[in-house]
């Protein structure tokens, strides 16, 4: 569904760490699409989601030293910053939360999604953004459990449990095998 380049040339990371903004932009470019999708699902607003990704990118750039050149952790680190930015946006801009409470109908081509998907979409929007987050990371961005766990700041077992619990809120008859 979404492919993300996991390995980035260490030289680019080195240049970014030394203060090269262009190198950092290159480094996070493959992550912008998943970051946007994460933000759009958490905020249920596409414009705000792009703003959040931009702001999160700047914050990540300013905090790049935290990563200590670890390219392998770049994706989960960056997505956790995006998730935090979305939380901040929701706190600061009450109307975003209001939209989550009563989501606007999303105009889609009628035959693009079947009824089940629409039902599932409504069910997803009824979840809180915090509940949606692990589902987005695992099912939509295809992050493995250990990376979901790092992004959420949880143990892999706790991340798995959270994903399963939330998935069962969507479909109460789901078995563990159907989820993982």
């Amino acid at each position, binding site marked *: 569904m979404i492919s993300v380049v996991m390995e980035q040339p260490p030289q680019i990371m080195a240049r970014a760490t030394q203060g090269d*903004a262009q190198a950092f932009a290159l480094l996070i470019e493959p992550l*912008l699409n998943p970051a946007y999708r994460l933000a759009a*699902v958490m905020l249920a607003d596409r414009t705000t989601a792009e703003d959040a990704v931009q702001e999160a990118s700047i914050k990540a750039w300013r905090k790049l030293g935290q990563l200590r050149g670890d390219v392998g952790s770049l994706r989960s680190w960056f997505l956790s910053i995006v998730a935090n930015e979305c939380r901040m946006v929701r706190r600061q801009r009450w109307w975003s939360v209001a939209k989550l409470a009563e989501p606007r109908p999303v105009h889609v081509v009628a035959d693009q999604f079947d009824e089940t998907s629409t039902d599932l979409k409504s069910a997803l929007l009824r979840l809180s953004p915090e509940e949606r987050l692990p589902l987005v990371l695992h099912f939509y961005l295809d992050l493995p459990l250990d990376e979901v766990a790092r992004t959420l700041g949880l143990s892999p077992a706790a991340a798995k449990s959270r994903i399963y619990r939330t998935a069962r809120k969507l479909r109460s008859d789901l078995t563990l095998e159907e989820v993982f």
Partner: protein
Amino acid sequence: MTREDFRREIGDAFDAISGSPSPALSDRVRSALVEDAPERHGQVWIAALAAAVIAVILVGVLLVGNPLNRFHPTPGGHGTSTPTTSPAPTASTNPSPTASPQPFICSDPSAFGASQAPPPLAYVDAVRTGMHTGYDRLTIEFQNGQPSSIEVRPQANTTFTRSPRGDTVKLLGKDGILITIHGSDAHTAYSGSMDLKTGYAGLLEVREVQDFEGVVQWALGLATTPCYRVVILTNPIRLVIDIQTS
């Protein structure tokens, strides 16, 4: 349903919510990063200067405030006592000034205190209501720590969905507020009423609508469109919501 079916369905649903980013997002981020670069260097310089100033102040405070440097009168009064020039201790015993009350806000949902790692569940151990001049108050008291996050969302009716049942309940009043408390439960330490009908002017009813998997929701039935304020107090940790009545 197979695992793949579920993934495909949920992926389609997420696609419908998010859509695709605008093609300009990448350029927009790149421009923002390049524009921020001088600021970043500036911030490093400012941070270094600030750290140096703080270090100097700390050293100064330690030198002046260190009790070992203070004058101690010699027992027996022998010799000439030198008057000390050390300043008197500056620690104040006055309580810190009470923060001014939060302003009332109208119809704005609010979220408070999201944290990264999940803390232990905060147990609701008391739910109280009270009538005061100008406002009605709801207090939800916790033990075993604080919840990971709290959301307060007003709504233009008093119909709420109970979870996980999925049925709806209608509370007294015209408008409502839904309080969602993550990282909490209301069954370990709380044995009081799950449905409080107050008879007040503003806050008419308080009812629990969810206590499930670490998420507790309380619904409020209000007489009119809510103007409210939210305060989190400590010792013990309490969520306080005041509903303005005049």
